[in-house]
């Protein structure tokens, strides 16, 4: 595959590993390893899939960030989606990732097994097509994701409005990348030395949501692509900034991302959505202005209106759950008392075990072999 295989080339990877080791060796010595947070769950997935963390020198390690929309999805949203799917003549559509997430009374897949209407789609336009084909049903799209995913939902809603499709609705839990990063960085205990920025969010947002990290917290950021060569190059770029004691936002993913991002996509988001006063995050609690809701002109498409009870229930987390510490770089997943015992991908107790992109699920999936070994 073009633009994929070249960026997985083992020879190039080998060269980068050597260069990273050489750069790391020039960093000032210290007792703690240099911790680099990959913000995006897609990066977490690639790091584990290709074993990139094992290629780094001992003094550099990845910390897995909050950028997995599935992991941060509160149970209350799933419960709302389940309730909608159980209405008569209703089809609840969403991405494959979302239908597995457990709510308080089970997941959307469980609801489907009990006879509810649940369909997995590739994108919102497919949900729109289902609404056209089934005029007698309400087709509800559960919209989750960060800024990358929001434009597709916005475009589908614009089309629905233009066509006057009355049976298409959206249950909106779209979130923004900057607020959870701000919440993380405001923790005085945070030990992260640099950030790998989410390349696909940046396609839409540009680099602006990350500017505050060097400006206010003096930590370097490199906006990274998703292939092994991209991620290792980004690590190397971060180490170079650390070596030179610099802190700025750099773009590694230049073949697709830009400082400006995609204005057309942002215009679609701005037309269809508005910032919600507060949005609930699994593991992080309610964060102000951290999510999107339908703008007044699009309220008619809001699936929440179909619900009889809309009061969101705050997510309850087991007090022993180590997710918050894992997120802030204070704990490795297998050290958590729940990890692998009470908390597994089949029955997750904390947000990071929910999706294969969550740090704990990725450890569980790929690292059982060494769960008790290194670090």
């Amino acid at each position: 595959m073009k633009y994929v295989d070249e960026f997985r080339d083992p020879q190039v990877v080998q060269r980068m590993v050597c260069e990273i080791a050489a750069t790391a060796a020039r960093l000032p010595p210290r007792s703690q390893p240099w911790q680099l947070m990959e913000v995006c769950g897609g990066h977490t997935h690639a790091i584990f899939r290709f074993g990139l963390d094992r290629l780094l020198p001992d003094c550099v390690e990845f910390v897995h960030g909050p950028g997995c929309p599935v992991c941060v999805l509160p149970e209350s949203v799933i419960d709302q989606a389940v309730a909608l799917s159980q209405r008569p003549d209703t089809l609840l559509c969403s991405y494959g990732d979302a239908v597995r997430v457990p709510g308080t009374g089970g997941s959307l897949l469980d609801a489907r097994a009990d006879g509810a209407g649940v369909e997995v789609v590739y994108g919102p336009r497919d949900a729109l097509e289902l609404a056209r084909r089934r005029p007698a049903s309400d087709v509800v799209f559960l919209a989750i994701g960060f800024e990358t995913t929001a434009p597709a939902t916005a475009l589908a809603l614009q089309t629905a409005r233009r066509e006057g499709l009355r049976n298409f609705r959206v249950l909106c839990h779209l979130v923004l990348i900057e607020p959870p990063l701000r919440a993380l960085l405001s923790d005085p205990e945070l030990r992260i030395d640099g950030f790998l920025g989410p390349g696909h969010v940046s396609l839409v947002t540009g680099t602006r949501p990350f500017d505050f990290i060097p400006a206010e917290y003096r930590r370097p950021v490199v906006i990274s692509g998703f292939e092994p060569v991209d991620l290792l190059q980004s690590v190397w770029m971060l180490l170079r900034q650390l070596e030179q004691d610099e802190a700025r936002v750099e773009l590694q993913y230049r073949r697709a991302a830009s400082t400006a991002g995609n204005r057309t996509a942002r215009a679609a988001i701005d037309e269809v959505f508005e910032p919600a006063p507060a949005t609930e995050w699994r593991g992080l609690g309610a964060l102000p202005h951290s999510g999107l809701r339908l703008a007044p002109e699009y309220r008619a498409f809001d699936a929440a209106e179909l619900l009889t009870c809309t009061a969101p229930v705050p997510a309850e987390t087991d007090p022993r759950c180590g997710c918050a510490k894992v997120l802030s770089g204070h704990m490795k997943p297998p050290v958590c008392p729940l990890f692998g015992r009470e908390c597994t991908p089949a029955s997750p107790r904390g947000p990071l075990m929910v999706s294969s992109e969550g740090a704990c699920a990725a450890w569980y999936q790929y690292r059982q072999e060494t769960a008790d070994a290194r670090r």
Partner: protein
Amino acid sequence: MPADKRLTLAHGSGGEPMQRLLQEQILPLFDNAALAGLEDQARLSLALGPGERLAFTSDSFVVTPLRFPGGNIGSLAATGTLNDLVVGGARPRYLSCALIIEEGLPLALLRELLASLAEEARTAGVQVVTGDTKVVPKGAADGLFINTSGIGVIGAGIDPGTHRLHPDVKLIVSGPVGDHGATILACRRELALSGDLTSDCANLWPLVDKMLSEPGLLAMRDVTRGGLNAVLHEFAAAANLSIEIDEAALPVRPAVRGLCELLGLDPLQLACEGRLLAAVEAGAADRLLQQMRGHPLGEQAAIVGTLVPRRTTPVILRGLYGVERSLPPVSGELLPRIC
């Protein structure tokens, strides 16, 4: 009975409509003496030579859509059960065919699907000797479900099985993995995908017939749902050993890889319907591999892994950059990812 007709509950009632369906539409497809008697059972004279054994297996087929590139539920119902016999070293002899039909299924479609089943059986030299037909109300089945059982004969001295597995044994997969699963996924209307994808649905006997005479062949499994991942876990569990897999050695067609990249799936979890995993003594692996590659069903066979003494996890994948990771068993339904 006109060809544009649809099946109704009456066709499963046991009365005259059912008799006409059988006599006019179904039985002619499977013409053979054992079936022609129309008793409640097939009566078979199967004389076993010294040391020969019978193999008996059963499988149900519920694939959606009923037709897909490379096959249909009929051809699958034949090859699926044949392959379950074949990987035990058995030469298939007889099949049964039981139908659960959802009312409303077009007769012409049923005939087409059963003709494919009959054709696969005939090509394999196998007779369909007994069967059953039920029609269920709309919504109680998805078009057509087929159950087939099969009987085969295992030659004297042939005993492939997981009881023979031990450390250092090599694992050979007979061809690219995931073709069937990728094809079926791409057929799902709501994903709206298309590509150069064809199911690998095939009767493996011609390939296995060649392999059985090779020294060092220890065990075989056909790779079906759950993909290669599932068979690796079955082998590891049965032998109480671990398996090390070399990711770079795994044969995967470009379009299957493309689909996996697009939907965030792992080709090792996608189903096959014409592939097997063979376990072979290390010293005999290269020779068996050459034999397999000499047959059209094994042209792209590859040595993909090795059995090793038990480690912390049953299946370990060595990736492109030499880093090992555990390959967990498939959990739940295969769903496309966005993240």
